[in-house]
């Protein structure tokens, strides 16, 4: 077991890199690692690197997501939940909420495996049949969730733009892998550009009392695990959309609860995707796709991988907490606009290096579309139509 733990530690280190550097996703590193794995003839060992990296990234991701891209904090109501805490000097508290959510998600997912497996065995055909209907309902719910008819019209415009962009780029052979630059543009660069409008300094971050309502933790864990099940079953639905829909459905508005749920989904979704791969041979996450390529599908390996995921969750929690404390100390001292601008340049350079001019074009168009919901003041989740609309078209039998 010592050997497996050493491979896991390598994965944790890579997960920290993937989590801290925006634009470097564990999926990208996973597929680079597959090349090494093929040469070493030890695919089972590399599986632990892939698992460790992806789980730790699910935790460390909270740091750039919460500490970067804070726009003008006077528009408080339109801020993302994590940014609301950052604007009040409670960025570290927001990270802690995400961590406890992700820890509870990891544990609950492992406990729910038998239940979820039983459900899949009975209801999979039904779920597959209603995927187009479910995706359609998600889109309608996202639009209906806007506060008035004007905003709903603007949300439809965002969905049309992002969906059209997905229909044009995803099936096109002109782009090697349009998903990475598109998502980076729609959510990453657009948010960071919006951050450039903000103040040059973020408020000093305090490490004070961080209250946690047991009810929120319980609700977050239960709702998050449910949402992770939805994310695992329905293609093109992300953690953000699933959390939003559940919160709307259960009439919850707490930003703390939202962060717990998102953390829970991020971690639980990874574990569920391993189960999904084992039971059905289907890959719903990059980590599961990498495991499939490594050819690891048997029951004992699934148990070992689940164990490795839980150990990695514990490591991810500590690494994330430690790094977040360092970030919270420094963030109020740095030139915030320069930091955001530097990250934008870094993302542009990464996309150009990996995908050349076509990738850069997708990044620029994605960014432009990603700025539209910010300008309208509607939810940025509508831009996930980039994936949802082409997936819906595929299930409805449209060529693409």
């Amino acid at each position, binding site marked *: *077991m010592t050997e497996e733990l050493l491979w896991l530690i390598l994965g944790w280190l890579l997960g920290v890199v993937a989590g801290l550097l925006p634009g470097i996703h564990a999926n990208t590193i996973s597929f680079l690692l597959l090349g090494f794995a093929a040469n070493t003839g*030890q695919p089972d060992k590399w599986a632990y690197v892939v698992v460790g990296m992806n789980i730790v990234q699910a935790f460390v991701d909270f740091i750039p997501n919460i500490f970067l891209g804070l726009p003008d904090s006077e528009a408080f109501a339109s801020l993302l939940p994590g940014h609301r805490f950052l604007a009040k000097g409670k960025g570290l508290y927001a990270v*802690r909420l995400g961590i406890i959510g992700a*820890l509870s998600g990891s544990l609950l997912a492992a406990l729910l495996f038998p239940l979820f497996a039983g459900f899949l065995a009975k209801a999979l055909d039904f779920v597959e049949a209603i995927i187009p209907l479910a995706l359609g309902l998600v889109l309608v719910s996202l639009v209906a969730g806007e506060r008035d008819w004007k905003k709903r019209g603007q949300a439809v415009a965002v969905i049309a733009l992002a969906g059209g962009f997905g229909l044009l780029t995803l099936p096109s052979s002109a782009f090697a892998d349009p998903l990475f630059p598109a998502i980076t543009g729609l959510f990453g660069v657009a948010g960071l550009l919006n951050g450039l409008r903000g103040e040059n300094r973020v408020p000093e971050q305090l490490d004070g*009392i961080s209250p946690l309502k047991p009810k929120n933790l319980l609700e977050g864990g239960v709702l998050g695990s449910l949402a992770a099940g939805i994310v695992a079953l329905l293609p093109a639905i992300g953690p953000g959309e699933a959390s939003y829909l559940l919160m709307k459905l259960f009439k919850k508005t707490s930003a703390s609860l939202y962060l717990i749920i998102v953390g829970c989904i991020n971690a639980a979704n990874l574990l569920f995707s391993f189960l999904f791969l084992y039971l059905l041979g289907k890959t719903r996450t990059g980590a599961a796709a990498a495991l499939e390529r490594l050819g690891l599908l*048997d029951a*004992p390996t699934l*148990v*070992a991988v689940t*164990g490795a995921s839980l150990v990695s969750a514990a490591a991810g929690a500590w690494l994330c907490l430690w790094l977040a404390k360092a970030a919270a100390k420094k963030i109020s001292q740095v030139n915030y606009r320069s930091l955001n601008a530097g990250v934008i340049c870094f993302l542009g350079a990464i996309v150009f290096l990996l995908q050349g001019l076509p990738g850069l074009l997708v990044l620029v168009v994605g960014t432009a579309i990603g700025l539209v919901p910010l300008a309208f003041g509607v939810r940025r989740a509508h831009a996930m139509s980039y994936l949802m609309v082409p997936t819906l078209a595929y299930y409805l039998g449209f060529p693409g």
Partner: protein
Amino acid sequence: MELSDQLIGFAAAGCAVIGLGLLFYGLQAAEPLPLRIAEIDETLAGKKVALQGTVEWTRQAKTALLAGLKDGEEITVVAFKPGEGELRLLRKGGTVKVIGRIQEYRGELEVVIERVEALD
């Protein structure tokens, strides 16, 4: 209730303990049976085994690399979509350790390779 480092530490420790237990159990269960080829029979179909021997012959089929592994007795080992490592190690005359699952194919027992290690 406070979301303190202690609370996170407690939850993380719970994850780590359960995780280490599952990892240990999974690795034990995933451990292949070390066998000689003569010991293999139909009752072992589906089991994960570890065999050591010399590669007597190789044949590249459309989607798989087939090889004859001999330790006195001989059995066919099959690598579907072989990686570079498998192609390098499964060469005639090479001494290797093969880990894989026993399956029956057209009435014959063979081993579907999960991993190959060099013993040279």
